């Protein structure tokens, strides 16, 4: 039962996404192009943040601590 409501809710969320970005007025193949470009860039952002942000933060903290210790 819950899955039906969940699906409906997800469908409504997708509809909101279509309306807000203005994709609603485009033809289906243009919507697919935009969705693929958008979601691939979002995926790349997520991957980059997962792979690099901890390393960068650790290095930044190290250099900050060293700078504080030197003084």
């Amino acid at each position, binding site marked *: 039962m819950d899955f039906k409501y969940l699906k409906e809710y997800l469908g409504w969320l997708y509809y909101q996404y*279509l*309306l*807000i*970005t*203005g994709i609603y007025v*485009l033809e289906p193949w*243009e919507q697919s192009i*935009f969705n693929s470009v958008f979601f691939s860039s979002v995926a790349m952002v997520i991957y980059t943040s997962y792979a690099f942000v901890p390393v960068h933060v650790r290095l930044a903290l190290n250099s900050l601590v060293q700078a504080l210790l030197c003084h």
Partner: protein
Amino acid sequence: MARTTAPVPNGKLNIQLNGNNFKNANCKKNGYHNKAQKNSTAHSAGPPSSRQRFQRPESFENPPMYVAVMTYLGFGIVTLFGYFRDFLRAVGLEKCHIAREREEQKNESEVSFLNIPLAKPTRLVIQQFHLQDFVPLYQDFENFYTRNLYMRVRDNWNRPICSLPGPVFDVMERVSPDYNWTFSLTGKTIDDVINMGSYNYLGFAENDGDFLKTVADRTQQYGLGVCSTRQEMGNLAIHEELEQLVATFLGVESSMIFGMGFATNSMNIPALVGKGCLILSDELNHTSLILGARLSGATIWVFKHNNMQSLERLLREAVCSGQPRTHRPWRKVLIMVEGIYSMEGSVVRLPDIVALKKKYKAYLYLDEAHSIGAVGPTGRGVTELFGLDPSDIDVMMGTFTKSFGAAGGYIAGKKELVDYLRSHSHSAVYASAMSPPVTEQILRAMKCIMGLDGTTVGQARVHQLAENTRYFRSRLQEMGFIIYGNDDSPVVPILLYMPGKVVAFSRAMLKRKIGVVVVGFPATPITEARARFCLSAAHTKAMLDQVLFDLNELGDDLCLKFSRRKYSPRPQQHNNNDDTDFELDS
């Protein structure tokens, strides 16, 4: 610096000080308060009745910031896809549906035209002529917006209807196989769609045989067409009767009627003003007023919408510096405003404008296209709404298209003005006179409103419209939509902002059998797309409740309730009994 003169009394000294920075000063000059204010605050100048009127604020609420950002984002993405599709069309991967030039006209080749055997000098001349290209007929970028956005969603406009556009009507169903480039009618109709788009303010768009009996009689008597202009052989007795009635209705000396409302403005303003005159026109004036102003050749200065400080600044500038190069005084200064602005639903600040015009000796042209018949306790327009004397307004103009269910326009005022227009107006000399059935329709509608036909139907309709307006506006504000305009105006724009939502709204409302008009970019600013509801006295409370219920559901479904004001939900206090007293402040 020693002062040798006696100290001046306090009042005068104040004026001296404030004269230097009058923009920000809070001084009282000649009874006119010069406060810095926004459009929406209450104003306390003018006679007491107008002060009461101004207690009803006009709201132009701003949406949250993310709404504006998302609107621009939506337009940006669709523009990008527009460029992409234009590229595909230019390359040839996609068929171009709109009008374009023929290939032969774009680039003339010299070889094909030299097959004619001619003497040498003539051949050289022809050769040079044909080396030039033709000037392109179509500028492709100009209709970029039309091609790439409007065509995609064209099914929301120009829907064919197949019944009388009364409070309910029938819409013909159409489908499009190629994304709205072409349409085909399925043959089915969508019946009993509630009509929220027609300017049917008093419900005179009706085809009941009883009401239209006099129209049928007059058609028998006078025929259908006039086949002449007013000045030649088209001046019928029925026209004179209508002009007398319009003058009595408005409380002025004399009036003249014209066959077309748009032409009333665009053909008569050139007769009133010319070169060397100044026109001060409101920012949001209708195209007919702008066209008339441009055709006249007068200088046009635009003041911010309903903003009296802007208008006064321009008036002072006009009086002080005169015409642009010669600095002679202007021959005439004409202030052009409308009674109700149809895109915003705002009402003009008439008492302030009349006070300003008297102070600076300017003339006032009031276009009451939407407000005649629709506002005021007895339907006489904004003059009655504010309790002003009609002789204060120099030129009163209006149309019969909206509240009277006919077509045409009138100009009313002093007898000298109207007599002048009878001989000098382009419309009187060259345009066909009003057709007799239309004239009789206006006569019967006006007699009904004035009560001259012996019934109280007209008054009941005016009251019903006022009641519908107040009910609808208050319920919409409670629900949380952003509405523009004055609480008295029967034109209700609901702001939708994003292009996707505008389109989805219109389609969803038609699916629920409500016909609405949505307006987008060229007619409104780019971030303020809206749906415009025009209330009618013919709408019953059940219809309004149905519309409000659907609006509520759609507002939740499409997330349209942007208003950040808090309204307490009040109990049902509007009921079907006629205990309405619109004189009370709500």
